[in-house]
Structures are given as structure tokens and as C-alpha cells.
């Protein structure tokens, strides 16, 4: 039994409460505890990378009677993404959040959001997934509205209403699964479902699950909240939402439930591909017209999540590798771009591209990190985005989905177009008169930007030079999905239930 598994959830949970308590005595402590907690979580997630598949029985009750935590390749990858972006966003917040009031509350909510996401990716129990999904979601609703101005409140309210619908849909799916299988343990439910004929009720449950998770990940017919919520939040929260939250609560949860519980039937995969393709195209086209930098990034998130969902829906090993790689990369460059946009806003006071320009000379760190992020996301070699997009297109070709491959290639050109527009109007061009006196961001913010830029470049080069990265992180994760597709999740079931 590996006691790190419950600790990586419980430490941020407990520290959120402790942060609030201690900050009543001295407000400055909150900075320190939040930094420390996310650092510890990051270290723990690195420690966990080396461990094998394992299950942890909460309270000593063996499954399916108690709640089980399950650790496998997919979980390891998600934990790494969540906690590294969480750590860098915390470092960034140290200076960025100075202009907001109530910093301890911000850190407490932030830690709760991280804990909720860690709980979602670790759990092996459907209802427990719902509970932790709600922790992460509720914390994010409050964080989106953290500025308590008109736009923030409006975005936060819309997000809350649609988020609650999503959670309810998921709970409906859990209830139906319980009705048909008599258990809420994922592995046990999967084993039961494999042993009985397909029922209409489970098809209905799958529909509820897919609708709920699509709402959470902002796929296109269900995306209405995303372009409002992501730009309205403070920059580190935008980075967390776009970089991690929609992946952990949306894509990961959808993949886990479809591949490991419901069984990956072709119709579910086709639904995923359809939703993904629509999101990819619509998100890309809507992004071109935006003049608000953060709003453009939000639409770009919809488009890029479309890529991930398409690749996962292909149902081939290369597709899984490509999708997971793009998920990993997207979390690095999208959080980098959101943090950069926050830095631009911090220095210049605006995020409207029409009022920006010529930042290249004045803000060297911010503009080079913006450039790195933009080049990565548009798929320029040798940055990491190029390799994952290329793999996705190759996977589409390999699966003989020619239309998808063409769409993916076309949308990547569109991506390049709108990011060239963003760079043209922010970094290059003429510096407006009003912004002669702008200054570069303070060290903690610059640290996060530089680290993420190095990650973007480093992963691209590492992927090119040696297979270690793919073998250590991507392959175990892809194997989990492959096992769900080909062997009815037998390896997952035996990890949890034994035998």
C-alpha cells in the first residue's frame, strides 16, 4: 500500500483549511503555506511517476465495499500536469495576486481546486469522482468571480449554472450505473457490465456521462460558458482552468468512464470524434475574430481540446499517444500563454490587442514567452506543439480518416493565422504613447514564464532526441486506454479487484 496516494489529495485539502486559520493571525503566511503545499504536491507527483500500478483501499475496506484509489499510467500523467501547472501558477500568484484583496481566500480556494482535481484523477469510484469534481468545480466558480466586477460575476454565474447541469448529468449517469450493476466502484461496475448484454439504460447513462463531461471540457455544442469564464478569471486561474481543469474534469473523466467503465464501443468513439471535430473547427474560426487576447486564447482552448478528443476517439495506439501528448503539451503552452497575457495585462493594464503593440523592446521576458507559447501552439518545429499535432495528423491518416486529417491540418493553419495576428499586434508594431513607461514583471512571475517556456522547448527537443519521455509518461498512459479498448479493461479490473 502506497500512502502517498491519499496524501496527495489530503495534504492540499488540509492545508487549505490551515491556510485560512493561520492567515487570521498573519496574512503573509498564506503565501508561504500555499507555495509549500503545491511544492510538496509536485514532489509527490514526481515520486509517484516511478511506481507501478496500484490500488489503495480507503479505510481498509476492500473493493467494492470501500472507496478505492487507483494509480496507473494515465493517473500519473494527469497528476504530473496538475501539480506542475499548479505549482507554477502559485509562484506566479505570489506577485500577480497582490493587486487583489483577500489573498488567503484565494490560496485556500486554489488549494481546494488542486485537491479536487487530484482526487478526480486518483479515484476508482464513480460517486467519489462526482464529489471531488464538485470540489474542484465549486472552487473554480468562486475563483472565476474573484474580481467581483460586472464581467467576472456574470461569467461566474453562467459557469456555475452550466457546471451544475454538467455535474447533475454525471450524477444521473452514476445513478443509472448503480441501478444496473449494484455498485459504484468503477472496476466492479465494468466487470458487471462486461458480463451482461448491452442495455438501453446503459446507453442512456452513457449519453448522460458524455453530455456532462462535454460540458465540463467545453466541447462545442456545450461550450457557451468557456469563452466567458476563462478570460474573466485572474491570469493564474485562467491558466489552471484552460491548462488543467478542462482536461482533468472533462477529457480525463470522459476517457476513464468510457474506456474503463462503459466499455469503448464504436458509437461512443464516433461521438467523441464528432464532438472533437466540431470543436476544433468552430473554436478555431471563432478565435480569429477576437480582439481580446484572453478571449482568443479561450476559443483556442476549445479548438485544441477538440484535437485531443479526436485523437483519443480514433481508438488506435498512435492516436492515444498523440492525444495524450497533445494534452500534455497543451497544458504547458496554454498555461504559458495565459500567464503571459496576465503579465501583459499586469504591465500595460489592458488585454485588448488594439491598444497594444511594440512590447518586444519594453518587456523582453513577457514577449519572448508569448512568442514561445504562440509558436508552440501553432505547431512550429522544434517546439512541442509541432510533434503532437503531427502525431495526431499521422494517427488520423493511419486510421484512414482522411477528412479528419485534412481538417486537423487546416485548423492548425488557422491556429497559426490567429496567433500571428496576436503577435503582430502585441509584440511587434508600434508602442502606443500611453505605454512608454511600462515595466517588466517581477521575478516570481518571470520565473513561471521562463520555466514554462523552457518546458515547451525542452519537451519538443527531448521528444526528438530520446524516447525516454514517451516511454516514461506517454506509453503507460496510452496502455491504460488500450487495455480499456482491447481487453475490456481487464488489467484495470485486476489492479483494483485482484485476480
Amino acid at each position, binding site marked *: 500500500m502506497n500512502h502517498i496516494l491519499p*496524501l496527495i489529495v*489530503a495534504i492540499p485539502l488540509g492545508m487549505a483549511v490551515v491556510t485560512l*486559520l493561520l*492567515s*487570521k493571525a498573519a496574512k503573509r503566511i498564506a503565501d508561504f503555506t500555499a507555495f509549500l503545499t503545491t511544492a510538496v504536491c509536485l514532489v509527490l507527483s514526481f515520486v509517484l511517476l516511478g511506481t507501478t500500478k496500484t490500488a489503495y483501499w480507503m*479505510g*481498509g475496506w476492500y473493493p467494492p465495499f470501500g472507496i478505492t484509489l487507483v494509480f496507473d499510467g494515465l493517473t500519473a500523467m494527469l497528476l504530473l500536469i496538475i501539480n506542475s501547472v499548479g505549482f507554477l501558477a502559485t509562484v506566479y500568484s505570489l506577485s500577480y495576486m497582490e493587486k487583489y484583496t483577500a*489573498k488567503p481566500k484565494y490560496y485556500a480556494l486554489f488549494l481546494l481546486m488542486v485537491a479536487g482535481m487530484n482526487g478526480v484523477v486518483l479515484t476508482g469510484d464513480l460517486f467519489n469522482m462526482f464529489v471531488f469534481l464538485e470540489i474542484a468545480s465549486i472552487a473554480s466558480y468562486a475563483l472565476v468571480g474573484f474580481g467581483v466586477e460586472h464581467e467576472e460575476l456574470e461569467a461566474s454565474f453562467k459557469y456555475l449554472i452550466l457546471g451544475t447541469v454538467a455535474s447533475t448529468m454525471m450524477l444521473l449517469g452514476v445513478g443509472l450505473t448503480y441501478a444496473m450493476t449494484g455498485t459504484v466502484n468503477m472496476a466492479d461496475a465494468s466487470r458487471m457490465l462486461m458480463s451482461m448484454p448491452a442495455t438501453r439504460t446503459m446507453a442512456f447513462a452513457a449519453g448522460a456521462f458524455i453530455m456532462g463531461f462535454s460540458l465540463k471540457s467545453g466541447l462545442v455544442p456545450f461550450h457557451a460558458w468557456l469563452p466567458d469564464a476563462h478570460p474573466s478569471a485572474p491570469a493564474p486561474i485562467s491558466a489552471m482552468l484552460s491548462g488543467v481543469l478542462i482536461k482533468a474534469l472533462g477529457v480525463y473523466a470522459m476517457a476513464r468512464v468510457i474506456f474503463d467503465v462503459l466499455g469503448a464501443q464504436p458509437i461512443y468513439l464516433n461521438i467523441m470524434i464528432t464532438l472533437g471535430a466540431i470543436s476544433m473547427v468552430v473554436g478555431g474560426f471563432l478565435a480569429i475574430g477576437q480582439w481580446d487576447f484572453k478571449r482568443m486564447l479561450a476559443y483556442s482552448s476549445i479548438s485544441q481540446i477538440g484535437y485531443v478528443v479526436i485523437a483519443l476517439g480514433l481508438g488506435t495506439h498512435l492516436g492515444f499517444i498523440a492525444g495524450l501528448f497533445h494534452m500534455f503539451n497543451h497544458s504547458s503552452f496554454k498555461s504559458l500563454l495565459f500567464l503571459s497575457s496576465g503579465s501583459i495585462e499586469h504591465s500595460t493594464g489592458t488585454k485588448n490587442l488594439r491598444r497594444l503593440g511594440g512590447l518586444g523592446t519594453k518587456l523582453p521576458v513577457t514577449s519572448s514567452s508569448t512568442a514561445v507559447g504562440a509558436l508552440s501552439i501553432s505547431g512550429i518545429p522544434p517546439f512541442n506543439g509541432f510533434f503532437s499535432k503531427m502525431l495526431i495528423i499521422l494517427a488520423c491518416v493511419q486510421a484512414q480518416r482522411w477528412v479528419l486529417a485534412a481538417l486537423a491540418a487546416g485548423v492548425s493553419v488557422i491556429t497559426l493565422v490567429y496567433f500571428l495576428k496576436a503577435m503582430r499586434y502585441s509584440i511587434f508594431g508600434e508602442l502606443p504613447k500611453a505605454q512608454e513607461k511600462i515595466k517588466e514583471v517581477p521575478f516570481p512571475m518571470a520565473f513561471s514564464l521562463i520555466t514554462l517556456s523552457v518546458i515547451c522547448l525542452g519537451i519538443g527537443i527531448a521528444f526528438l532526441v530520446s524516447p525516454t519521455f514517451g516511454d516514461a509518461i506517454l506509453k503507460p498512459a496510452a496502455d491504460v486506454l488500450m487495455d480499456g479498448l482491447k481487453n475490456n479493461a481487464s488489467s484495470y479490473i485486476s489492479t483494483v479487484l485482484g485476480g
Partner: protein
Amino acid sequence: MNFKEMTRSDTLGMTVVVKTIARLVMSFILLFGLYIVLYGHLTPGGGFAGGVIIAIGYVLLVLAFGGKVALNKLSNFWASMWDNLGALSFVCITFLGLTGGYFATNFVAHGTPGELLSAGTIPLSNIAIGIKVGASLYAILIGLSIYGRIVTEED
């Protein structure tokens, strides 16, 4: 909106009849809440239901006497303090489960089923949840109903 625009019942409370009855009933409500919390492992109810009942007792105070009197009995600061402490003690109970071998183990001796002092950590957790729920719901209600427009604190 500001303080001056608040209605009379927000600041001064309701009539004498209501106040007298509220004073009488309040202690019974709190007692009942306490009973529900403590006997949660034996009868229907539990920490959450009991905590809400305790909160409702204070809500009655808020509605009948106005926010000022209620805040004198239990200030917002202490309400959020109890809230944090309740949550923290529940987290601690689950952490202490590690001494029983796993996270969230019921590590205290179970005793005889049906007695008040039985079921290991279940009554303890019920008490922690009761404190947490009661305090936080009281705080949120006073924040929403009376100070909805006035809660302005910087932190």
C-alpha cells in the same frame, strides 16, 4: 443599497411576541440539534442534519432579533473560526486513520452496537461535522440575508 435602506426587521428584529417565543424555542432547537448530532450513529440524522438544525436555531435568532443581537452572541469571526476548526478536526480524524493502517480507518474501538459510546470514530466525525456545518451555515446565512449588501470586509 446601503445600510440606511435596510428594512426595520433587518436591524431591530420583529415584535415582542415573536421575540419571546423565539427565546423559548431556541434552546429547544439547539438541544434537539445536539441530540441529533450525538445520536447520529443510532437514530436517523447525524452530524450534517444536526448541524443544520443548530444553524437554524441561530437563524431564528437572526430573524427575530435582527442581525446585531445574533452577532453579539456569535460573531462572524468566531463563526468562521468554528467552521475552520470543525473542518480541520474532521480532516485530522481521517488522517489519524493512518494509525489503523489506512487513510480514513475507523481506528477507535467499536464498543457494543446500540450504545451511545460505540462505533469508534463515527460519533467523533459526527461532532466535527456538526460544528463545521452549523457554524458555516450560520455564517453564510448572516452574510447573505442581513449583510448581503454590507459584507465588505477586505478579508
